[in-house]
């Protein structure tokens, strides 16, 4: 719009000029035609005229950009070492930043992969003392019926199953889902259909939806798969549909979905909770409205069923929050760290650019004197930086692309880790980083260039001169050191925590223990047969040569797990005594032998047919039952009246049952084990646990041919995986910190080298006058150390603030740990000595005569 109006104006204006000129010429006696010809000739080419004037408005800009780019590329190729250094530094800075951002984007920012995923919520029934993440099927159906704020509520639980229609039993993970499962998630099968109401009812036809993965693996992706039959744990199911490849709910390793009928007789107890409930809010309904609504629904249920429902309330959180909320802090921590790293890289490059600008002062002065405007020179400088930054960002993208593999390797259990990858948003982010870097890096040298006296520079004619003491360059090195110190301190504290975790006295011996699962469904769980089957399997395992002890447990010691129960003794306790709250564990009697847990009082329990027995740990005995007097008393769970009172047979040592990073809780071990889905088998073996895997597989196949053995893993690997997030952030932060201090070291080296180069005449002169080489050496090393020292002084308070943010992630070390901070100072000073030595040595080796003769 603007150019065309401008052009019209211009044409009219020039046309007017031409008419006046023709008039004038005619007045001096020419004919109209002659006058027109002459005027036109004098006027020059009309259209060139037009263009020349118009160009100023539009093309000038474009042309300037192209010219700047061309000039920039030329200038950069003339100094390849500088260019490569900067591009690589930026690639590292921007790449690492984009990599962490890609994780944040995939895990935290992007909605879950369902339509209108913001409407999805997780529901749980909670009680004042006992948070129960699971919901009873009857209650779920009532919530569904009486609420008015959710489109639908459904639930699921999963179990491991053996599929036996193939040659060998194959372990599959199956999700059992309440009605409305796909409706809530808003996903339709890619092939086939959803469950029919008949299939969702008890006694209806057995139907199963299969995963895309299983479809490919078992049926070769054939459309004929729908209608085929799978044999899962003694029942036949017909395949009614195939889910899309992108559907991974509730887990990425679920291969089967089948209905869990809410009208089944076993699902009618209000105490039987097993569903993880999810729901979809009605459009436009807020979380608060849903909470109020469900609270009212549950309040009415409480009046109807006072015994079971009066104390219960409903908690609702967004599904995304319950999926990824736990790792938010770690990811933002990493993002903050990697942004500090980028800042260091920027400062480093700004310092390099500043040195380059000084070296090019003469060139710049000439350009100014030839009439280049301030703006032109600035644009030129910024363009050069932009070329570097974009090149850095592009190389960095490779790093970011590779990083998704790093995340998957370091923390495979990270929620949504499969979704991390490169996409348009990450590319845009990298380019935005490049622009930010350009402004950040470019502003300092340009700002300084502004104050420079041009004529002064020209007058000096580019002769080498000592440019004062370079306070700006050293300040920038100091900033880098300070930022690096922050990262070093953070990494140091996390590393110390990690170390502490390894040295913790856990109360059991995790080495030489092999763990595995045996496939099993909920339908077979519980009761005498399950108990006998478990005993039979354990006896069989004990007969394998090399197995020293065999046991089962519902959870693994040292791996975070939480099962809090309230207990009473049948012998009674005074009302004034504290409530007995403890962690409940279900183990077979050989658990203690297999874990090397010592007995302190009483005797070992045995799994007896008619009597329930239990062991308690020292904390429980001391806290609630006056120590060893506890042996022989009986424990009951008020919330589970079906369990018969268990006699306390003995007291064992304290074990970190809730995770290595938590103090041992008061614990009660019920000495009974009937295998259910998820039961761990634990074997103590003499050597490397993995070496026995094949033997164990064969043995189980011999004992239980229809069951599959899976997840044969040393206990230590489970513990290590449980702290994968911890490991991820520790390793990455350590990597960032090392990179940061390396960059700061390079920055110091570069600045000192430049200084040595500038002052070579002065140094040579001093040496000619008798200064010792060692004095010169010390002078420059001192200068480097001084900068590093000030960097430390500035960095440590910031590091302390950073450490406070970390404090919830630390273990066994305080945020202001003097040893760690001391080490940080030591590392920084050591690195700066190393960085200073090379230039200092170069300075001390100057041949005075040669350096002076150069002038």
């Amino acid at each position, binding site marked *: 719009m603007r150019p065309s109006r401008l052009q019209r*104006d*211009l044409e*009219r*204006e*020039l046309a*007017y*000029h031409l*008419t*006046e*000129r023709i008039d004038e010429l005619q007045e001096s006696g020419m004919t109209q035609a002659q006058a027109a010809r002459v005027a036109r000739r*004098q*006027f*020059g080419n009309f259209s*060139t*005229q037009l263009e*020349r*004037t118009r160009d*100023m*408005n539009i093309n000038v800009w474009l042309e300037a950009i192209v010219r700047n780019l061309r000039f920039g590329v030329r200038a950069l190729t003339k100094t390849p070492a500088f260019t490569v250094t900067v591009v690589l530094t930026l690639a590292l800075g921007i790449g690492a930043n984009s990599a962490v951002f890609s994780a944040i984007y995939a895990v935290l920012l992007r909605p879950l992969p369902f339509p209108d995923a913001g409407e999805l919520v997780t529901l749980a029934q909670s009680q004042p003392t006992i948070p129960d993440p699971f919901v009873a099927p009857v209650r779920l159906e009532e919530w569904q019926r009486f609420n008015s704020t959710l489109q639908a509520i459904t639930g699921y639980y999963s179990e491991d199953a053996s599929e036996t229609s193939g040659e060998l039993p194959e372990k599959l993970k199956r999700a059992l889902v309440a009605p409305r499962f796909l409706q809530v998630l808003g996903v339709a099968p890619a092939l086939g259909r959803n469950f029919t109401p008949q299939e969702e009812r008890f006694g209806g036809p057995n139907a199963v939806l299969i995963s895309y993965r299983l479809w490919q693996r078992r049926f070769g992706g054939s459309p004929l798969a729908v209608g085929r039959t799978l044999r899962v744990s003694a029942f036949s199911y017909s395949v009614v549909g195939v889910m899309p490849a992108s559907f991974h709910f509730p887990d990425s390793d679920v291969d089967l979905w089948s209905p869990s009928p809410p009208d089944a007789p076993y699902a009618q107890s209000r105490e039987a909770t097993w569903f993880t409930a999810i729901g979809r809010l009605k459009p436009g309904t807020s979380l608060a409205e849903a909470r109020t609504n469900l609270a009212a629904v549950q309040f009415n249920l409480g009046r109807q069923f006072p015994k079971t429902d009066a104390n219960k309330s409903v908690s609702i959180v967004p599904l995304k929050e319950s999926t990824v909320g736990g790792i938010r802090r770690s990811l933002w921590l990493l993002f903050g760290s990697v942004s500090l790293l980028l800042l260091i890289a920027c400062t480093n490059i700004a310092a390099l650019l500043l040195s380059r600008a000084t070296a090019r002062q003469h060139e710049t002065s000439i350009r100014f004197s030839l009439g280049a405007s301030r703006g032109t020179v600035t644009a030129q400088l910024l363009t050069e930086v932009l070329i570097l930054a974009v090149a850095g960002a592009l190389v960095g993208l490779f790093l970011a692309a590779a990083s998704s593999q790093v995340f998957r390797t370091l923390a495979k259990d990270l929620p949504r880790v499969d979704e991390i990858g490169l996409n348009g948003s990450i590319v845009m982010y990298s380019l935005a980083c490049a622009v930010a870097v350009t402004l950040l890096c470019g502003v300092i040298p340009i700002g300084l260039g502004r104050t420079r006296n041009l004529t002064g520079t020209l007058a000096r004619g580019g002769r080498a001169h000592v440019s004062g003491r370079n306070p700006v360059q050293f300040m920038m090195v100091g900033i880098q050191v300070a930022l690096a110190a922050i990262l070093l301190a953070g990494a140091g504290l996390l590393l110390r925590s990690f170390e502490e975790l390894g040295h913790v006295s856990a109360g059991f011996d995790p080495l030489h223990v092999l763990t595995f699962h045996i496939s099993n469904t909920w339908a077979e769980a519980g009761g005498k047969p399950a108990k006998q089957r478990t005993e039979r399997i354990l006896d069989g395992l004990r007969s394998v040569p090399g197995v020293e002890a065999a046991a089962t447990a519902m959870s693994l010691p040292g791996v975070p797990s939480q099962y809090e129960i309230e207990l009473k003794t049948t012998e009674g306790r005074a009302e004034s005594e504290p409530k007995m709250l403890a962690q409940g564990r279900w183990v077979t009697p050989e658990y203690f032998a297999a874990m090397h847990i010592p007995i302190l009082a009483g005797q070992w329990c045995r799994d007896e047919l008619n009597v329930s027995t239990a062991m308690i740990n020292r904390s429980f005995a001391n806290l609630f039952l006056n120590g060893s007097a506890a042996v022989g008393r009986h424990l009951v769970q008020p919330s589970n009246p079906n369990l018969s009172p268990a006699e306390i047979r003995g007291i064992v040592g304290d074990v970190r049952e809730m995770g290595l990073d938590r103090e041992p809780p008061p614990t009660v071990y019920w000495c009974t084990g009937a295998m259910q889905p998820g039961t761990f088998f634990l074997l103590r073996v003499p050597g490397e646990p993995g070496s026995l895997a094949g033997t164990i597989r064969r043995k189980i196949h011999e004992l239980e041919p229809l069951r599959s053995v899976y997840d044969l893993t040393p206990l230590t690997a489970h513990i290590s995986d449980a702290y994968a997030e911890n490991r991820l952030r520790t390793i990455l932060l350590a990597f960032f910190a090392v990179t940061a201090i390396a960059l700061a070291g390079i920055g110091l080296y570069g600045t000192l080298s430049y200084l040595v180069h500038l002052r070579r005449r002065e140094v040579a002169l001093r040496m000619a006058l008798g200064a010792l080489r060692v004095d010169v050496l010390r002078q420059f090393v001192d200068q480097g150390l001084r900068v590093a020292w000030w960097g430390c002084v500035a960095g440590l308070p910031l590091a302390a603030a950073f450490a406070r943010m970390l404090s919830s992630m630390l273990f066994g070390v305080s945020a202001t740990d003097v040893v760690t901070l001391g080490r940080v100072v030591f590392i920084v000073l050591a690195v700066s000595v190393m960085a200073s030595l090379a230039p200092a040595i170069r300075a001390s080796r100057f041949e005075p005569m040669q350096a002076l003769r150069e002038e």
Partner: protein
Amino acid sequence: MGKKKNDILQGTLALLILKTLACGKRMHGYAITGYIQRVSAQSLRVEEGSLYPALHRMEQDGWVRAEWGKTEKNRDARFYSLTARGRKQLMQEKESWRRFTAGVARVIRYA
């Protein structure tokens, strides 16, 4: 077109235009060329090829203001007048011109 002797020295055109407009009258491009030639007693000739780009650049820089109007012969023409910023610029250009000529004069005298 060959280069003529009385072409205006690069960079002084702006000064001449500003000075021309400084009398306060609104003038169109044609009138400006005429004025400069007349006042300089035909020794300076404004090239149309430089005049209009210069005028537009000055307009962009805010030294002059332009508006359409009618000439005595009732023709449409673009009239230029000086802005406050242009007036300031004129002072500066005058000053640097004085320095330049003084410098040149000195060189001629002593070199």
